[in-house]
């Protein structure tokens, strides 16, 4: 008797949630920070997946939105606004920047759009470094107050861990909803075949712009969470190199699935932590891994079970695996 696929899936999600919930009590508190980072990156990468994976475009500017969110949240909190306000404000400011950038740039596609977003990322780094009165310049800005909702302060790693992952879960839930809605279906249609989608009446430019706004909004709120983690931020955290890391996370995890960003972010952050001793050489290892995955798992780590399933049935000598979901 086969257990239907969807049950496997919900079981996997349940186990995953359980592991995440118990994790901070079983490991060294200092390592909890790594998993907080994983959660923050998961939010930003999910945004990128929604834009890149569904519409089939490329953005190398996610770190800029991440930075805009972080600085917005830092500055507002230091002025005295509550965390909840600066959290949403950082998302909205990033989305507003996304609108300003996306409005002209999204007329370009694929590689040309990649160039445009890269240029945006590079110029944002320069702004972060040189608008000293606002951002604190090269040395960045510190003394950001701890995140707090009402009287409760998230000033320890463990409490902050739960805050970040609850927000990540909400983001993933809405991303899942999005893929099932007409908006998500329109995005997928454009990604598959823009000409066919337009002849069905889908305004592809509008759809791409909306998904770019969602992408930058999620980048912004992830940045806000990042700012309140170490409570100090500097321009070097938001360079185009970081954008490429976001891009790699999305690709490694799997662009066509909403869980891709999550898995890519966790795996990437863990690998980065393990290879910390290698210093700059870790780029070589990560690069090699990326090449390996693109060749053997082009649809990302999320397609791993599917690939294994195929391999197993091949080994059993079964022919023609026609899957009917």
């Amino acid at each position: 008797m086969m257990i239907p696929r969807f049950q496997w899936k919900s079981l996997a999600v349940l186990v995953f949630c359980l592991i995440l919930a118990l994790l901070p009590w079983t490991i060294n508190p200092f390592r909890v920070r790594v998993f907080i980072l994983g959660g923050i990156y998961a939010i930003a990468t999910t945004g990128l997946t929604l834009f890149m994976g569904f519409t089939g475009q490329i953005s190398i500017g996610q770190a800029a939105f991440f930075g805009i969110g972080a600085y917005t949240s830092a500055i507002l909190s230091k002025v005295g606004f509550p965390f909840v306000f600066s959290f949403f404000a950082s998302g909205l400011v990033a989305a507003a920047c996304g609108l300003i950038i996306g409005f002209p740039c999204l007329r370009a596609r694929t590689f040309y759009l990649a160039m445009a977003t890269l240029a945006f990322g590079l110029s944002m780094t320069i702004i972060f470094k040189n608008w000293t009165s606002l951002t604190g310049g090269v040395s960045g800005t510190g003394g950001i107050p701890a995140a707090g909702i009402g009287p409760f302060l998230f000033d320890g790693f463990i409490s902050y861990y739960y805050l970040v992952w609850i927000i990540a879960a909400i983001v993933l839930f809405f991303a899942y909803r999005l893929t099932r809605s007409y908006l998500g279906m329109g995005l997928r249609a454009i990604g598959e075949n823009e000409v066919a989608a337009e002849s069905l009446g889908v305004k592809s430019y509008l759809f791409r712009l909306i998904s770019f706004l969602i992408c930058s909004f999620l980048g912004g709120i992830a940045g806000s969470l990042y700012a309140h983690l170490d409570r100090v931020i500097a321009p070097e955290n938001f360079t185009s190199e970081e954008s490429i890391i976001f891009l790699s996370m999305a690709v490694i995890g799997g662009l066509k699935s909403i869980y891709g960003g999550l898995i890519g972010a966790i795996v990437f952050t863990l690998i980065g932590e393990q290879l910390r001793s290698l210093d700059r050489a870790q780029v070589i290892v990560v690069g090699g891994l990326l090449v390996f995955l693109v060749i053997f798992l082009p649809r990302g780590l999320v397609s791993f079970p599917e690939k294994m399933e195929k391999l197993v049935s091949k080994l059993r000598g079964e022919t023609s695996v026609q899957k009917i979901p």
Partner: protein
Amino acid sequence: MEEVALLKTENISKSFGGVMALKNVTLGIEKDKVTALIGPNGAGKTTLFNVITKMDSADSGKILFDGHDLSRLKPYDFAKLGILRTYQRSMPFGEMTLLENVLCGGIPASAVGWLGGFFRTKKAMRVLERDRQKAVELLQLVGLFEKQGMLAQNIAYGEQRLLEVARALACNPKILLLDEPVAGMNPEESLEMAKLIQRISKIGLTIFVIEHNLDVVMNLSDMIYVLNHGEIIAQGEPNEIQSNEKVIEAYLGRKGIWRAAG
């Protein structure tokens, strides 16, 4: 009897570089009829379709739909007006299931579905449920009901073409432009498609079809236009076209040449 043309082109011309692809093409597609456009390869048939749906812009001339000028519209505006087209090369959304493919026809129509579907409001869920039922019915119509859960990239080529027709029908078209619907199909698949076209035209849909397969065209159409070197060289009912000298010449070459050769 007065003829009612639903879609009309007036003096459409289009050239690519030095090549005149269309020369003063004027034709009218009558409501609730099947109109066919035939002609040898390179006659400009697909170009005319592209010009009508603004995939290409005409150099001169006018396109009228129900009396409205279409020349200022964008490709995505046509579905809303009820003008749907399919392409010579099949373009299903390969990584979606058949049901999802057909559901895509409802994307632009339901503004409530956008944010409403996101937050799952009651109204949006009702719309979605209604659209889903309609999509299932359409899949039944084209005979793909059993395969609704499969990915579009995993079904046969002929089935993909049928799927595309279903997807276009989901947009509630008034007129359907079919670009070589049976191209590359085997005889059985062609017959299936021809039957489908007949069935949907009987529901009360205007159909404008480009086709190479003359057997299919002669059986299906109420009216035929023949395009050669960008010009309409003949028009009329199937039996008139079959005996038209100019058409035979365009397809088979000049009689004199045959005589000389024979």
